[in-house]
């Protein structure tokens, strides 16, 4: 696919993988910080994230409050740190569910073919035709707002992506000579599916998983922003952004930092996804 020029092919490849490595390091660093904050943040925050302070309403960033305070005098930095939990949790549940269910369905569809394949593909087409945010909105209204519903809706919306990826990859791999060889050696179909097809199908699924994580972080903030995500006073980046709209002229720092948190997290996952995509694309099946 790349230029076939033998003189600079290698050089280009090296440079490419260097860029990939750099992206992976930056992305991994950002994501690592966010995950650490999500897990341990609640114990590290300088202030109680939900404690109002009516003497310091909408205070500008200062030494006492590095990122300022909100309309109830709550410390923005503390709320941002605690808010990381919601984003990471939603992304984690969505990715885990979508990859486990989607990979299984995709490989089973490719392996069994026939009616099973047709049913799975039909289901995927229906979910695909359902506008993603509308599905999330409908689910949230039906089940009530909350993190679990946001995670579930993200798992469902992203499921088709994984099913298609895993199915396409499995279809490709089942034609490989080494699969034929294992069959000739007398391994059972289930064994081949689990031991050979599954591990070899995972690479493109992992790339999609990092993009799903990024999408879920954005979706959580969208739904919270529309008022359908996590309910106050629990801080999430989306609800903070929503709450800040009324004070944009007086306290622009709330919207700025809340948006920046979402942006950096999504950027981190996208960088990881890009780097994985580039490095896995090189590898043979």
């Amino acid at each position, binding site marked *: 696919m790349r230029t076939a020029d033998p003189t600079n092919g290698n050089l280009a490849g090296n440079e490419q993988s260097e860029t990939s490595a750099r992206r992976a390091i930056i992305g991994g660093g950002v994501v690592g910080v966010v995950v650490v904050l999500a897990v341990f943040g609640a114990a590290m925050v300088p202030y109680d994230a939900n404690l109002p302070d009516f003497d310091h309403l909408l205070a500008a960033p200062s030494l006492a409050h590095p990122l300022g305070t909100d309309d109830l005098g709550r410390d923005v930095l503390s709320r941002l740190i605690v808010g990381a939990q919601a984003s990471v949790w939603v992304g984690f549940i969505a990715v885990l569910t979508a990859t486990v269910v989607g990979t299984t369905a995709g490989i089973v569809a490719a392996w069994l073919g026939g009616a099973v394949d047709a049913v799975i593909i039909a289901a995927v087409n229906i979910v695909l035709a359902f506008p993603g945010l*509308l599905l999330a909105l*409908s689910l949230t*209204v039906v089940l009530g707002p909350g993190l679990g519903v946001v995670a579930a809706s993200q798992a469902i919306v992203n499921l088709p992506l994984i099913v298609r990826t895993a199915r396409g990859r499995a279809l490709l791999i089942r034609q490989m000579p080494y699969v034929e060889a294992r069959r000739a050696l007398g391994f059972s179909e289930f064994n081949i599916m689990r031991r050979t097809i599954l591990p070899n199908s995972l690479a493109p699924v992992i790339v999609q998983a990092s993009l799903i994580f990024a999408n879920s972080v954005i979706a959580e*903030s969208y739904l919270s922003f*529309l008022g359908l995500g996590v309910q106050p006073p629990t801080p999430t980046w989306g609800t903070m952004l929503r709450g800040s709209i009324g004070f*944009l002229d007086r306290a622009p720092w709330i919207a700025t930092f809340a*948006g920046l948190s979402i942006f950096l997290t999504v950027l981190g996952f996208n960088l990881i996804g890009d780097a994985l995509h580039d490095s896995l694309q090189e590898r043979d099946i």
Partner: protein
Amino acid sequence: MMVRWLVRRVLAIVPTLFGVSIIGFFLMRQVPGDPATALLGFEASSDAVSALQARLHVDQSWPVQYFAWIASLLQGDFGRSLQTGRPVGEMLAQSFAPTALLAVSALGVSLAFAIPAGVVAATHPRSAADRLLTLIGIVAQSMPAFWLGVLLILGLSVGLHILPSSGYISPVVSLWGCAMHLISPMLTLAAGLAAANMRTVRSAVRQVLSADFMRTAKAKGLSRAAIVWHHGLGNAAMPIVTVISLQFGQLLSGVVVAETLFDWPGIGKLVVEAVFARDYPVVEAVVLCTAAVFVAIGLATDALYAAVDPRVRLP
């Protein structure tokens, strides 16, 4: 051959739309609370509530409600809004123009940026321009649309006072006013699309540039510009069209958020308000219509492919 292929593809859509309609219908029926009570308020007498329930058919069994809904849908009747009592079809039609204006202009602006930028990046791989554009692409794709919207309001409306912060003026009333109100929501929507489209154009053009016929074109003595713009972009067009057609979902999510943030009276704002008011007929109609549009776009893309490349028409 082409006609038979097309008929088969159109028939294949029916079960998908049927599935979407069933899911949409039953999902909205799971919403806790009763629309008649919601409309009349909790102080209403039980007689009034049951009278309204009968009028809205919500007292009948679900299958009856579903088939009554489908039957009237097939006659072009989307029912009436529980919230306003107006015909849903009329509300959809009214919201359609602002949304179409917003979505089409955003898509247009994104392509006006993405095509030249993508071609430059593809023809100068690993150059400073390529790196910069790639960086801009990743940043723009990671930017949550509504945050960009908030930043635009902060900078252009609150800070510089050059643009209105929200609202909509019909182009029929004032072209200038419409354009001023359009800029911020359009940019909010266009940024992510532009980034995604640029990456698509870049990889599609790059792939085509390494094809054998490009070497032939070069050997024929064509100028570099003619090769890239005519042969390169021409042959990269189909994969680009495919990716753009798949962006409809992203476009719709962006529309919902941008319309809510900028108080833009389109389909997105309509559906969010309907979701809050538990206005089933409106939500169902929006879901089914967008799904139909989505499927139709997919079909149109496939048909375009089939017309260009006969191999696609094989079963």
